[in-house]
């Protein structure tokens, strides 16, 4: 009960003090015009209190308390400073009173700061200055940042340590099934883009060829989708043993020569594409075509996903988190937003998918930890392992077993997807509803199919919203912490930057903890710069 009273009193006190400060500041600005000496007197009080506090706190008086001593002993001194300040201020105000027009002008100039001041103080004191100090600390010698001198070792420690950052294992990118399927999808997408552009701008022979090609591509695309699904599911559930053929392949592609060939090929393709664009022939490849754009997105996600699953270390892992969760949540959210428009029970369904947003990450971790539960013998009590067992597979510890590396990460990421999909869905559904009906109706009148209306009319309209959703997710996912802490605590190579930062902080390694925070900051810096530019355009 005593605790309850203390809490109520402190809450009420905090609110009362805030209100008094705000109203008082407004009154003080009022008095600039109407009662000038009162204003200078109140400035004097502030200055006097400040001087008194500084003098007392730093122990500059002969027999004052020591530096950092309790404030209580110096109330008298501080109070005296305030009274003296008030007197001096009132005197100055009486002696020198500027003209009324001048003071009105000052009042107008001062007033905004009373309103925006508190927010600026909080943000400067709670985010900007601490951020700068973190940057400073990350270059300091020692662990607490007290020792003199600067060093780069906290950063070199991160980027030379295998557990944090390494390029080892990059050759397995080329044998990663996701990567191979992704490349195939990219090739098919290019063909589809060419074919659909030919339908628009080509001669009769070319249209005939393009029509046939399109028909074939539709079949290939369906096969690819199936292949993607199979490759993906297989990557997730397979036991980690590689066949000998794969070993041979790995040796071949891991040579330096292969790397250079890949680099040169990529450069050539990029140059050719850029040259085509520069000549103003964008229509040659119609990336806006429904089939092409969906395949391009799928290919990009798969290639990046495949590449990141082979690069290990905390930094790469963090990037993998961002790509996977931001990509999957946005795609799923968009899918659901489109489906819900034509589904029955739209509102209830949406609410249920949106619900995880209200659940804490820690709660979500408990919920899913239990879904992934594995029992060494007897009945499986985790739903997933029960299903696996029922289908005749061996149950697995989804993220508690080392044999699951690197896919154990994916199962934790999926918890985040579960939470964030609702966010993407709600925002994108609102954007789709905001697309003017005249546009979609006009397209339908012109004979566009449903898919064409979506990809060529709706998608360009909601593109800014998609970007906002993706950037928001990037910011949220980059600093993922609670989920990893509450599921694996970083064991079995599931660690992320924020968790490492927290552990260093708890061990009171302030400088290296700061270095991890700065690396995190560097990851979201592009998003921050993008946001600033967007705001600038909006306010201009």
């Amino acid at each position, binding site marked *: 009960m005593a605790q309850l009273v203390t*809490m109520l009193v*402190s809450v009420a006190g905090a*609110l009362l003090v*805030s209100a008094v400060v705000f*109203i008082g500041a*407004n009154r003080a600005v009022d008095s600039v015009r109407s009662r000038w000496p009162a204003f200078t007197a109140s400035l004097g009080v502030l200055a006097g209190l400040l001087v008194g506090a500084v003098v007392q706190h*730093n122990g500059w008086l002969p027999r004052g308390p020591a*530096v*950092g001593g309790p*404030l209580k002993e110096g109330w008298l001194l501080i109070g005296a400073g305030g009274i003296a300040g008030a007197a001096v201020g009132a005197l100055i105000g009486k002696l020198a009173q500027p003209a009324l027009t001048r003071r009105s002008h000052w009042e107008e100039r001062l007033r*905004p700061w009373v*309103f925006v001041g508190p*927010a*600026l103080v*909080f*943000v400067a004191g709670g*985010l900007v200055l*601490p951020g700068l100090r973190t940057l400073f*600390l990350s270059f300091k010698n020692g662990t607490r940042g007290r020792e003199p001198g600067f060093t780069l070792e906290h950063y070199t420690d991160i980027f030379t340590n295998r557990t944090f950052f390494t390029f080892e294992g990059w050759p397995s990118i080329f044998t990663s099934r996701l990567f191979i399927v992704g490349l195939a999808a990219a090739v098919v997408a290019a063909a589809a883009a060419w074919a659909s552009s030919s339908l628009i701008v080509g001669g009769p022979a070319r249209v005939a060829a393009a029509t046939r090609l399109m028909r074939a591509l539709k079949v290939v695309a369906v096969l690819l989708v199936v292949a993607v699904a199979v490759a993906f599911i297989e990557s997730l559930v397979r036991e980690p043993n590689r066949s000998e053929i794969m070993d041979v392949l790995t040796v071949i592609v891991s040579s330096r020569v292969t790397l250079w060939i890949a680099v040169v090929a990529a450069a050539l393709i990029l140059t050719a594409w850029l040259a085509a664009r520069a000549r103003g022939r964008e229509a040659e490849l119609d990336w806006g075509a429904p089939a092409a754009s969906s395949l391009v997105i799928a290919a990009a996600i798969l290639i990046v996903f495949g590449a990141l699953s082979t690069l290990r270390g905390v930094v790469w892992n963090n990037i993998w988190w961002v790509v996977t969760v931001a990509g999957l949540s946005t795609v799923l959210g968009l899918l659901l937003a489109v*489906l819900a428009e*034509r*589904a029955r029970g739209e509102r209830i369904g949406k609410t249920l*998918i949106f619900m*995880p*947003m*209200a*659940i*804490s*990450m*820690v*709660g979500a971790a408990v*919920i899913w930890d*239990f*879904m992934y539960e594995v*029992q060494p013998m007897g*009945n*499986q*009590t*985790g*739903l997933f392992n029960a299903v696996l067992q029922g289908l005749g597979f061996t149950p697995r510890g989804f993220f508690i077993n080392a044999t699951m590396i690197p896919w154990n990460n994916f199962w934790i990421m999926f918890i985040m997807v579960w939470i964030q999909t609702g966010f993407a869905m709600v925002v994108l559904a*609102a954007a789709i509803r905001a697309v003017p009906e005249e546009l979609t109706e006009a397209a339908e009148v012109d004979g566009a199919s449903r898919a064409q209306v979506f990809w060529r009319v709706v998608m360009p309209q909601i593109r800014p*919203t998609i970007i*906002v959703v993706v950037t928001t997710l990037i*910011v949220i996912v980059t600093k993922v912490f609670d989920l990893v*802490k*509450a599921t694996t605590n970083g064991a079995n190579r599931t660690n992320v930057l*924020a968790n490492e930062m*927290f552990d260093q*902080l708890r061990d009171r390694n302030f400088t290296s903890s700061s270095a*991890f*925070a*700065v690396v995190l900051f560097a990851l*979201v810096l592009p*998003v*921050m710069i993008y946001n*600033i530019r967007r*705001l600038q*355009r*909006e*306010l201009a």
Partner: protein
Amino acid sequence: MTSPQTALMPTGLRLRRLAAEAPTWVMWLIVVVWTVPTIGLFVSSFRKVRDIDSSGWWTAWNDLDNLTFQNYRDIFRESAAQPSMWEFAFNSVAIVVPATIIPIAVAAFAAYGFAWMDFRGRNWLFIGLVSMIALPNQMAFVPLLQLFNGGARFTIPGVDWTLALLPDVGIANTAAAVWLTHTAFGLPLAVLLLHNFVSQLPRDIFEAARIDGASHFTIFCRLVVPLARPALAAFAVFQFLWTWNDYLIASVFLNENEPMTIALVNLVGERGQNFQLRFASAFVIMVVPLIVFFSLQRHFVRGLLAGSVKG
């Protein structure tokens, strides 16, 4: 299923009917996948330890008599291993209430100032403040922790004079440290949301009020606050969910008087022992935000859209 009418339909038409139903099926399939885990937790929180360890929660329907409130009774009772959940719930409330109210008040002042007052550097300050949304909170932890634990000092280089800029006011390890941190971290988004709303209010009413001689303070109290109530509610829901569900900030700044999320993680840590209690605890923590979510979903969605769809 097949009524006489559908049976007479040509196959193509029937297929098209089926295709038209496809969105409903796919959506509800995802809905089921999305809700089943939470249901599993809910059911398990009523089961006995022996049952949880030996059979899946979906078999609980077979013998409903075995369900019990014992887990809930246990977490709300004080024991040697863990204090009662009431204590943690109380700590959570002590953190959440001020951590929601203070940023709303501060952000409302600032939103009005940025939207309807003219001063030098307004756009730059606004952009700078709002861009802090993307700053990872981790960037502020070490300095804030040092500040709360020992005040701020500055040593003038060369002369070797140490100035105490801010005294150690003794708020380390108290809820007040967590309020202040939550306020600073929540403000950029709050200012953006409220600014978007307040700046859309019609210019005429402010001009009319100014001509009638109302000061900015009067306009703020009498016009802006009542009119911006939807936006204030939207952000309140946001900040409430964020502070109630927070684990990171509480675990960085508190060693005692910890909120419920920390209690839950402590329960998860000790595997095996008190295994069954985590489900009931997790559900107890979820109940409050879920009630807020379902009753104020409209406001929550509005806040989400105001913060992200614009522009």
